[in-house]
């Protein structure tokens, strides 16, 4: 049953067919490579764009404007009785000191409105800055010092060039008179940008110049530590049981399917669950690292279990058989031999799960973490917020100066994410064994 061949043509050899299509096949491969490369380059380009945008906007937040003022620590204003009682020193009117100093420097400013404008060049945090200085060193009382005071966020924006001085006055938040004062101060070298330590040591604030990420960082720290403590043992335990001990039947199949499903559940669902069960039923206090870590543990557990099971699967059965062969009990086999070998993979899974939890906001919205909390939390049951939520709140603030601070906070968050992922990679490189 030969096929009717075309008239008189010699039979084609396989090599001819291959040769004829070779060029096309090579071209196809080149095309595929090119498409792949373009995809990767595009991806990198967008990442670079994102980083450039965030760093471009945020790098200025690491500096903060200060204004120098010759200031007399008038004993009559701070401590009229001369008792040096810390309570008196604490409650003294330090704003009056600044006003008095301004009167000396700008004797020509007399109108009430102008005096107000002059005073508002300084942050509302400047008086407490002075108070802390006096409390630390009461001997300053009665002396005159050149002090650097925190500038208001509008002045900070002006100095950093975010406010265009050439615009008409009505369109600027900083009025002509203030610009004049600032330019005079600049000419005298009394304005300086310094490293913004407040950003790293303070909790949040409604005043951009006083706002910091310390509170959110501590909240994140407590939340992640507790999440790790809760989810890692449970995750590893569940993985070991399911992988090594559980009988294969309909129940374990059902559990496995459910774990895989849970890994794909939108994270906000866990927040709703946390609100209903942990807060509603068990009365866990709202807005605390405790409830946040409970919710995030639920969220990371499936990821952790799947990663741990994969790590256990990659340990060759010969190890188990050898251990059992020399008389180890199944439990000893697991804990002395299999688990240590699977640990690097499990830890990698844990770190990636933690990185996931670090960047998570959606479930926390439900459990009262979108809150304005100034005080830095000092425990698992203190009200706290976390870094991504802090970024969310700052991004929503009207003050112009929060734009750079939002970007700066994003930079800190990204740095932590990169560090954690790097740790996961290094861990894998260092300890992973191949068979």
């Amino acid at each position, binding site marked *: 049953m030969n096929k009717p061949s075309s008239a008189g043509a010699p039979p084609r050899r396989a090599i001819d067919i291959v040769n004829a299509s070779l060029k096309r096949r090579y071209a196809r491969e080149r095309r595929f490579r090119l498409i792949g490369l373009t995809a990767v380059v595009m991806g990198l380009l967008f990442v670079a764009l994102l980083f450039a945008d965030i760093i471009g906007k945020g790098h200025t937040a690491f500096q903060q404007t200060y204004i120098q003022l010759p200031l007399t620590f008038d004993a009559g204003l701070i401590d009229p009785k001369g008792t040096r009682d810390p309570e008196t020193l604490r409650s003294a009117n330090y704003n009056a000191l600044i006003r008095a100093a301004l009167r000396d420097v700008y004797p020509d400013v007399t109108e009430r409105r102008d005096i107000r404008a002059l005073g508002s060049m300084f942050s*509302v945090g400047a008086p407490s800055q002075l108070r802390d200085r006096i409390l630390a060193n009461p001997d300053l009382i009665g002396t005159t010092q050149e002090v650097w005071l925190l500038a208001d966020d509008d002045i900070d924006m002006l100095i950093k060039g975010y406010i265009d001085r050439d615009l008409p006055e009505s369109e600027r938040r900083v009025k002509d008179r203030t610009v004049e004062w600032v330019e005079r101060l600049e000419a005298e070298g009394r304005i300086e940008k310094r490293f913004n330590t407040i950003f790293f040591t303070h909790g949040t604030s409604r005043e951009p110049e006083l706002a910091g990420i310390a509170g959110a960082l501590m909240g994140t720290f407590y939340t992640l530590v507790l999440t790790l403590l809760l989810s890692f043992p449970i995750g590893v335990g569940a993985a070991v049981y399911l992988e090594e001990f559980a009988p294969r039947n309909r129940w374990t199949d059902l559990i496995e399917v459910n774990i895989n499903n849970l890994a794909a559940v939108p994270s906000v669902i866990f927040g709703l669950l946390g609100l209903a069960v942990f807060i509603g039923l068990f009365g866990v206090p709202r807005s605390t690292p405790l409830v946040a870590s409970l919710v995030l543990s639920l969220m990371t557990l499936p990821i952790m279990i799947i990663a741990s099971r994969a790590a256990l699967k990659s340990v060759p059965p010969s190890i188990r058989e050898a251990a059992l062969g020399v008389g180890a009990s199944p439990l000893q086999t697991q804990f002395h031999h299999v688990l240590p070998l699977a640990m690097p993979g499990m830890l990698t899974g844990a770190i990636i799960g933690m990185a996931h939890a670090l960047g998570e906001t959606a479930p926390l919205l439900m459990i009262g973490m979108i809150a304005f909390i100034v005080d830095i939390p000092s425990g698992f049951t203190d009200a706290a917020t976390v870094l991504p939520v802090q970024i969310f709140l700052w991004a929503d603030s009207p003050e112009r100066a929060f734009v750079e601070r939002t970007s700066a906070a994003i930079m800190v968050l990204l740095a932590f994410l990169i560090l954690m992922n790097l740790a996961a990679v290094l861990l894998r490189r260092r300890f992973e064994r191949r068979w």
Partner: protein
Amino acid sequence: MKKTLIAAAVTLAVTTLSSQAMARDSIWIAGSSTVFPFSTAVAETFGRESSFPTPKVESLGTGGGFKLFCSGVGVDKSDMSNASRAIKLSEYEQCQANGVTEITEVKIGFDGIAIANSKSGPSIDLTLGELWLGLAKDVPNEAGELVPNPYKKWSEINKDLPDAAIEVLGPPPTSGTRDAFVELAMEGGCDSFDSVKALKKSDKDKHKAVCHGIREDGAFVEAGENDNLIVQKLVANPAALGVFGYSFLDQNADKVQGAKIAGVEPTFDTIADGSYPISRSIYFYVKNAHVGTIPGIQEYVAEFTNDKAWGPDGYLADKGLIPLPDAMRASVAADAQALKPMDKPAK
């Protein structure tokens, strides 16, 4: 042995938890995201200048705030509720049913809603009626019958308006700003048409649907809760208009300009004296039963209702709050500091 250990650990954990939950020494405020910037500013100053800890302020939205506030009395319920509208009768009754009987209502000022476009675009002056025609789902035709909104350009509504496609960026329905915009601007606009106004008497539900219905053909873009984002989008697109809170207009006066509504520009003064039509009152509510249990509530109310905070020269004015008129401020402050319980709201 192990079991007893575990049981002991669990009991210990539960007791420490519940004792933690029992004692709360800081004030807990929850509610509107519009009032959030003001409430937090007061909370921070209060924390800095008083001997009490800084109150915790949650941004849940007005409705979410009342839900929590009215869920009962106890340390695990909020002490105060921020609201960008007055409490509704249904919410008040919910409160009463859950034992929150005495509530002090404190009106703190006004918040304007600006319709704005980029500085590089034309300056705009429209009436609420024109705004409604531009944004409503159904509009009356010449015969007074409702037809799907045919307008594509502002100039089709009024020749004096710019010859540009209607494109308005605004907040999504979950936002209090959107509620206020719909109630004040849209409803105010639709009632300037007699045929629609007549509906109010004959068919109230229909009237509401017609007035509150925003077109869904792409002319109104829901741009998210973040007002900063809307400002950025306006700068990028000079032909578009945006709807957001007055404080964002105030902070971004170099980038965007507020549209005049029937000749009235949105400014501090026009909103304060009520001549700018799209403005609303904002409030906070105090649970009187918590006064005395949670320390500092009365002092916080005093701090808020002090002229150095909510007065025309106060720090809240810097944050964009439009203060109440002097006489009203004095009387509200007196009632608030005396924690005078409010009466049942009318609706």
